[in-house]
């Protein structure tokens, strides 16, 4: 196999966890490469989850989940400004509808205190309804003021961009095929693009983390994909749903089907939880949709189903150990950041700290003096004042052409999303970075135009533009005069 490059650390997987680790590693004098098998970062669990920054009262005290959750939540408060992240610190409610559930709230609060969560409070029904007037059957709720919602794709891209501006590299379309070991320790990674020589590997491969570990000789755990389905509503539906994050009382299996409004004002309901054999099954099912609607109706009987704009399913990586698997494995040089189900999104920056610190300790790498923590600030055209909008168009007239009508996204923003570091390469990549196509028409108007802009900016034919994953081509050449199906 052809040799490509030599580096200190290879991170496998471009989700929120992989990119958070890459960013932490880029604080040290270490050469780092992230490899992602898909054409873009953020295509696994990160693209389809509840987007919640949990307070940290769910996980058992002392577990890695609990520790990294509470620490991760704190870090997001700091990263929000540095990386210009989209976060709404809404707080969260766990709503009880029976006396038994009120008792559960007490348990949750105790655990939260033990986990180091600040500000927890039991609210009365009246206090809950003041915040969320559309809820029904409320007995009371656990209020966690430190919780919030974020824009997971935005955070993933920001982590990657920050790492890149500090010398790290992101290689998409790069699939890990195997590992090279010398004297039992990791010496290189075999990929479809060739061999990358490296001293350390971090496995952040999501639902495939067990298979990657096995390739390296670590079969200490397995990962099961647990599918969660969601229904997302138009922004106009928010007033008849909720303004923040509302959980039902948790069960053993999951935190339950929640009702939550995203950073951009779209409310969603979900997820359910179904264990899968197939790690590629992202299908939304009729039964699944009925399940989440039925469950959400316990809190909000009149769901505005006519204003639903999309449904999707995400796979959570559930480890056989019951907790996150973070740190060195029995294979020297091989680290895991695996089993990153909820609260993985919240925990990611803390996981990054743990892994990077350990690799730095082992390798003796020092912290860089000139680490650039901040990313340049950008503001969506829609959120600009009229004066700012006029200025933006004056500087670049592509800001005067609205491509996505539903979300008011301009050509200028789309071109910038393509041409910035770790830029968009696909139609969905543009969507996740700019929100073009996220609105009520779901890309009906702008999808073909975004395709044309991608082709122009990347200098590729329109027929090579992908929706999202490899081989997900959008359009084809017309048949010639003698062609066609007969």
């Amino acid at each position, binding site marked *: 196999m052809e040799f490509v490059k030599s580096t200190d650390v290879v991170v496998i997987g471009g989700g929120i966890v992989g990119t958070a680790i890459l960013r932490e590693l880029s604080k040290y004098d270490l050469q780092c490469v992230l490899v992602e098998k898909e054409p873009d970062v953020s295509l696994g669990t990160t693209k389809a989850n509840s987007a919640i920054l949990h307070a940290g009262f769910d996980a058992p005290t002392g577990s890695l989940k609990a520790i990294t959750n509470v620490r991760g939540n704190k870090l997001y408060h700091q990263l929000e400004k540095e990386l210009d992240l989209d976060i709404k610190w809404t707080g969260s409610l766990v709503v009880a509808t029976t006396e038994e559930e009120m008792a559960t709230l007490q348990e949750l609060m105790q655990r939260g205190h033990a986990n180091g969560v600040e500000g927890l409070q039991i609210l009365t029904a009246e206090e809950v309804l003041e915040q969320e007037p559309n809820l029904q059957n409320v007995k009371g709720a656990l209020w966690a003021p430190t919780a919030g919602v974020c824009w997971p794709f935005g955070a993933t891209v920001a982590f990657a961009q920050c790492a890149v501006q500090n010398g790290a590299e992101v290689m998409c379309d790069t699939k890990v095929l195997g590992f090279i070991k010398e004297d039992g320790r990791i010496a290189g990674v075999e990929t479809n693009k060739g061999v990358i020589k490296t001293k350390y590997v971090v496995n952040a491969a999501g639902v495939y983390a067990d298979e990657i570990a096995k390739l390296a000789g670590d079969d200490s755990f397995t990962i099961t994909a647990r599918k969660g389905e969601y*229904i*997302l509503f138009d922004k*106009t539906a928010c007033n008849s749903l909720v303004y923040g994050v509302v959980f039902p009382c948790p069960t053993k299996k999951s935190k339950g089907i929640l009702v939550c409004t995203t950073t951009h004002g779209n409310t969603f309901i979900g997820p359910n939880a179904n264990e899968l054999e197939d790690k*590629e099954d*992202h*299908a*939304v*099912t*009729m039964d*699944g*949709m009925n399940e989440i609607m039925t469950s959400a109706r316990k809190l909000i009987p009149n769901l505005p189903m*006519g204003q*639903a*704009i*999309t*449904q*999707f399913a995400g796979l959570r990586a559930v480890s056989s150990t019951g907790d996150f698997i973070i740190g060195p494995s029995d294979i020297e040089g091989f680290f895991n950041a695996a089993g990153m189900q909820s609260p993985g999104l919240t925990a990611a920056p803390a996981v990054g700290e743990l892994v990077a610190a350990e690799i730095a300790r082992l390798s003796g790498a020092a912290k860089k003096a000139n680490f650039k923590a901040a990313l340049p600030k950008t503001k969506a055209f829609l959120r600009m004042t*009229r004066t700012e*909008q*006029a200025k933006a*168009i*004056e500087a670049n*007239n*592509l*800001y*005067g*052409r*609205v491509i996505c*009508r*539903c979300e*008011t996204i301009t*050509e200028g923003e789309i071109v910038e999303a393509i041409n910035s570091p770790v830029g968009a390469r696909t139609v969905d990549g543009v969507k996740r970075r700019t929100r073009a196509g996220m609105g*009520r*028409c*779901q*890309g*009906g*108007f702008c*999808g*073909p135009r975004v395709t*044309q802009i991608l082709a122009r900016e990347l200098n590729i034919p*329109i*027929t090579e533009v*992908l*929706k*999202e*994953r*490899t*081989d*997900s*081509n*959008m*359009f*084809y*050449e*017309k*048949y010639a005069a003698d*062609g*066609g*199906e007969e």
Partner: protein
Amino acid sequence: MNQLYDVIIIGGGPAGLSAAYSAWENGAKKIIVIERDRELGGILQQCIHNGFGLHHFKEELTGPGYAYRCIEMIKDKPEIETLVDTMVLDVKDNKTVIAVSPEKGLMELQGKTVILTMGCRERTRGAIRTPGERPAGVFTAGAAQRMVNMEGYLPGHKIVILGSGDIGLVMARRMSLEGCKVQAVLEICPFSNGLTRNIVQCLHDYDIPLYLSHTIVKIHGDTRVTGITVAKVDYKMCPIPGTEFDIECDTVLLSVGLIPENELSNGLNLAMHPLTAGPIVDQHRETSLDGFFAAGNVVHVHDLVDFVSDEAEIAGKYAALKALGKMEGEMREVKVSAINGVRTCVPQKLSMSVANPADEKVKLFMRVAAPHRKVRLEIKSGDNVLLSKPLPVAKPSEMIAVEIPAAKFDLIGDEITVGLLL
């Protein structure tokens, strides 16, 4: 930049163009049409098939041909300005319009009246909650139509169309003419929602099967669509277990309904009608907000562009008269109610001049809730019959247009009802 216009028209499709011409004909001196696309004409430019214009222009035209007629009518008139590649960001209730374009930047225009002619958009997969994977190859029929007819690319090669509305039917023929294989058209209703002529010339002519009372229960494919699972539905439109079968395809086109595009209307808090999903208008097409008019698919989805033009001419005329101060005088409001099998009727109210009620006949556009044969349409006010008309066929997909003669106006009380005698 803050110029005062008699009429600002938002949307340069057939409704906006017809409204502009009519406003000009009725004496408006400063008219502007704002269009977001790169040229005027709206969705007609991608509807390259024929069948347009028989009522309005007394001639059968293609979509681009119809658009061309409308554009020619307003061209070279110093009173009418047009802006293309321009998006309206906001309309204030004092009739200030904020718009942007790459060429002119951020603009602020002031109107004496505003006509809303933004048209409609397509219902999506998400709105109908089609289960399955989310691969490439699922398009709304209109998006695919634009790519095939204007940009020169195919959405795929082996096609299934969900929904038998006219766009779906026309696209079935269009894809066949491009050399693609159309595997099936599926319709969840027990009847087609398209024009009969399109069933004949778009499906029968190309041996494309139409499955009534069927829908997609799963879309397959990790990266690109590889096929679908279809099931028969019961009378409640729920899939019947055991009736599933698979169809191989690489593309699913959705023609599952149109929704008036009323983001700006909602921003203005106009009174909206729950069934038409458009603003409530009177016979002059004036909305609940003084000086704001609306016409075309933004008010209610039409079956024929000819009716869009007719309606827009009404809006253009009265917007012009309003801007010129010729719509003064006391008015009384008459409610128009759709009852007994008539689902919607536009206008939803009449503004009758108290001094001079019999000024002009009133045209009503309505849709029935379910298909009927040989029924009678009756328009009444109290016990007074204003109009009674036999209908040989009445279908939800086809709009019914009738006129109340001015001579009947003195029989009108506070409300008129429009219904079928079943």
